């Protein structure tokens, strides 16, 4: 039996649990292939950490060095001392960023999953057209709409409000595209069975669709988090009042060379700031990835 299994193993079967209990020598070949690749995948993360602790001479070393040799916390000290001098307290920027990111994720998840459910499982006239329009819009580069968007935001008098951080990114084509594909994977019979049992659309959406596409939601949430958390552009374009700008914007002004810092110190602080900006991404990723990975194995019906 075991031999028969290992022959068919390559076709990707027998994977009901994420981690099998036992270790078998036949698994070694997977590690041989996967370990080096996994190392490549870890490179950028290691690089960010290592880069932030580099002293100036290593930051500018040529050829560039990947790992830090004499780690120093000077970059962070520089950055924090600069933060102490800012007009608006740093906690304010942090608060803005956290609030905006949280609301953006919650709201955009709700909007895209509702729309994706309707476009995938409901039947109405414009459904195909709407999805086609979304797919076409997907191809447009965001910068193409920056200026017209600016005018609309001005007309709606949304300038200098929290809304401007959140509203424009709610209906993002990419999220809808991916989530709809995942909902398409749920068999129609599941929805029909619920309908026969008398479940309303809201119940079907909340009790059946959402739990089944949790991995997709978690994936999109990770992507949305990054888009929202790292966004300095909205603060630059649509916000004039300093107290409504985001942490990402603040860090980018701190490390910009025009801010009076000399180039050398600027580079070091930029590296430290990159690490600080990156950490929440990593934390959210670690929290959500178990959702992504574990639910993936029993989503949908066999």
């Amino acid at each position, binding site marked *: 039996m075991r031999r028969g299994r290992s022959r068919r193993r390559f076709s990707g079967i027998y994977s009901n649990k994420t981690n099998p209990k036992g270790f078998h020598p036949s698994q070694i070949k997977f590690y041989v292939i996967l370990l080096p690749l996994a190392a490549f995948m870890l490179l950028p993360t290691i690089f960010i950490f290592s880069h932030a602790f580099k002293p100036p001479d290593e930051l500018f070393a040529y050829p560039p060095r990947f790992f830090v040799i004499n780690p120093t916390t000077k970059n962070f000290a520089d950055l924090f001392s600069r933060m102490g001098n800012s007009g608006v307290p740093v906690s304010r920027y942090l608060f803005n960023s956290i609030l905006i990111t949280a609301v953006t994720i919650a709201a955009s998840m709700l909007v895209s999953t509702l*729309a994706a459910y309707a476009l995938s499982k409901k039947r109405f006239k414009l459904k195909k057209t709407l999805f086609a329009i979304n797919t076409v819009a997907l191809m447009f580069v965001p910068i193409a709409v920056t200026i017209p968007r600016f005018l609309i935001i001005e007309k709606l008098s949304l300038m200098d409000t929290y809304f401007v951080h959140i509203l424009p990114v709610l209906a993002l084509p990419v999220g809808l595209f991916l989530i709809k594909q995942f909902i398409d994977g749920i068999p129609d019979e599941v929805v029909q069975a619920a309908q026969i049992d008398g479940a309303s659309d809201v119940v079907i959406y909340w009790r059946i669709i959402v739990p089944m596409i949790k991995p997709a939601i978690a994936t999109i949430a990770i992507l949305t988090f990054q888009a929202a958390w790292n966004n300095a552009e909205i603060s630059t374009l649509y916000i004039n009042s300093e107290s409504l700008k985001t942490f990402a914007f603040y860090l980018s002004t701190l490390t910009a060379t025009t801010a009076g810092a000399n180039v050398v110190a600027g580079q070091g602080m930029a590296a430290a700031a990159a690490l600080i900006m990156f950490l929440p991404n990593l934390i959210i990723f670690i929290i959500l990835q178990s959702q992504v990975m574990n639910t993936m194995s029993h989503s949908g019906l066999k």
Partner: protein
Amino acid sequence: MTTPKIGRCRGLTHRSREAVYGYAFVLVWIVGFALFTAVPLLQTLYYSLNQVTVTATGISLEHIQWQNYTRALFTDPTFVQLLIEYAIETLVAVPIILIFSLIIALFLNLKFRFKGIFRTIFFLPVVITSGPVIQELVAQGATSVPGLAISATATEYIAQLPDYFRNPIEYLLTSFILILWFSGVQILIYLSSLQKIDQSIYQAAAIDGASAWESFWKITLPALSTTTLIVAVYTIITLSHFSENKVIKYIYSQTYAVGGGIGYASAMSFLYFFVLFLLLTVIYLLLNYRAKRQFG
């Protein structure tokens, strides 16, 4: 989904209720989309046909028909060059990402220890590629194939090749790891569809004497054809929206440049969109053809 529904009751009332719920669920999305994406896009299209000047009081337009487009295509020496480079790079990168993510997904779908950790690691680059960190990494040369790119013999050999052959290879050498980092979401999509394939098909095939190799080509791959299309579309989109993309950088720089302007940048955005559309069509036709042949 056109399968006949079971338990449909009394035609019109049910159907119209279905439609009402359908529209209600999409409504918020439609409003947001129209306001912040669709209307601005039309506006951009209009701008692309005008000479746009920003004045103190607002924006003044002067209709110049297709001049922005002809300028981008025939006068501007950089734009067309960048577009062609972009198209070649995408056509090189997409198959690599597709194949790589499929292979990794197949591996990660097997049974072995610490699989969960491996899945996490392969998904991890997702937090990098969309962030600002990637610029730093590209600048540091961390994306090239270590050793190969700087090896003298390799450089010598590549220099001998004709241009249309050399560019893709150079791109491959300098950005190979970057390409692999783009595979996070793709691996995930493949993995989830692999797990939806009915296990009993494999068992039936095995009883009939199919080898693992055969069942991969005859069962796994055909079952993944729709997924492959989705993954391809997603890959092209992420590659073309990537902040380090040269075309985007150029359009961006032209928006605020003295000689450029909003109208010109809008025209370039539409040309870029058109190229993107062509690329997607090509990939769509290729994959569709393959899928049909495999089923037939």
